[in-house]
């Protein structure tokens, strides 16, 4: 029964986890801006969120079938969900990181992460308010 109190938080919690995963992807892109041959990656956020909340069927993630296999960390996206960025300009060393676009995406993701935090806080506060006793008039 208690999980009905926190079920409303599930959507935002999933969004928060995806936002932090995207933040890590963008940080990897920025870190590898000078690496020859590096391919910039990003995720389609709305699609990934729909898959995570069950609206869309999920493509199978990596599984470990033998002892030597490395397992993906909890919450990591399958490699098929990560898309490659289209480079705006070609580069002699075939590096596809566009620094301006990565920085813009990073700021965008940061603001949306904070927005998600505030939504969660608002919902938590609403739930707590509903539990407070009514002040006798």
């Amino acid at each position: 029964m208690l999980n009905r109190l926190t079920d409303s938080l599930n959507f935002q919690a999933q969004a928060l986890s995806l936002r932090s995963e995207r933040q890590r992807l963008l940080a990897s892109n920025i870190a590898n801006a000078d690496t020859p041959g590096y391919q910039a990656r990003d995720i389609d956020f709305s699609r990934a969120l729909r898959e995570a909340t069950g609206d869309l069927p999920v493509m199978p993630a990596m599984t470990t079938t033998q002892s030597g296999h490395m397992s993906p960390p909890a919450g990591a996206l399958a490699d098929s969900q990560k898309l490659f960025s289209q480079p705006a300009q070609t580069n002699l060393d075939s590096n596809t990181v566009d620094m301006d676009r990565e920085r813009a995406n990073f700021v965008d993701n940061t603001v949306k992460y904070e927005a998600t935090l505030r939504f969660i806080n608002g919902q938590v506060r609403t739930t707590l308010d509903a539990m407070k006793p009514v002040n006798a008039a």
Partner: protein
Amino acid sequence: MSMFQIFNISGSAVSAQSQRLNVVASNLANVDTVAGPDRQPYKARQVTFQTAMVGARDDMTAAGVRVAQVSEDQSPGRRVLDPKNPQADADGYVTYSNVSAVEEMVNMISASRSYQNNIEVMNTAKTLLLKTLQLGNS
């Protein structure tokens, strides 16, 4: 939580860019060195970057960067006719290093921009994580 990895990723990038700056500084310091008796002038050095996994042992999605190797530029040094120089060879030529100051300055600007960008990424991640810790506090 996956955002903690950002410190590993950006930390590796900052370290790699600072090695690149070291190499630029070495090259610029040796612009005017002259070949010694062994006839080998200073050769400009270059760093090569490579993607490196900086996550935990079984985490394959944290793509940091590392310096794969420091290679030397093999093009011949600058030859200047100066018979009075004690280092001149039999024809009166002195061989200086093959460092191009303009290229090194461009390298330095690019390295410092990348360095600043990665520091900014780390600061932002730190701010967001601190705010996440405040979750639920009214």
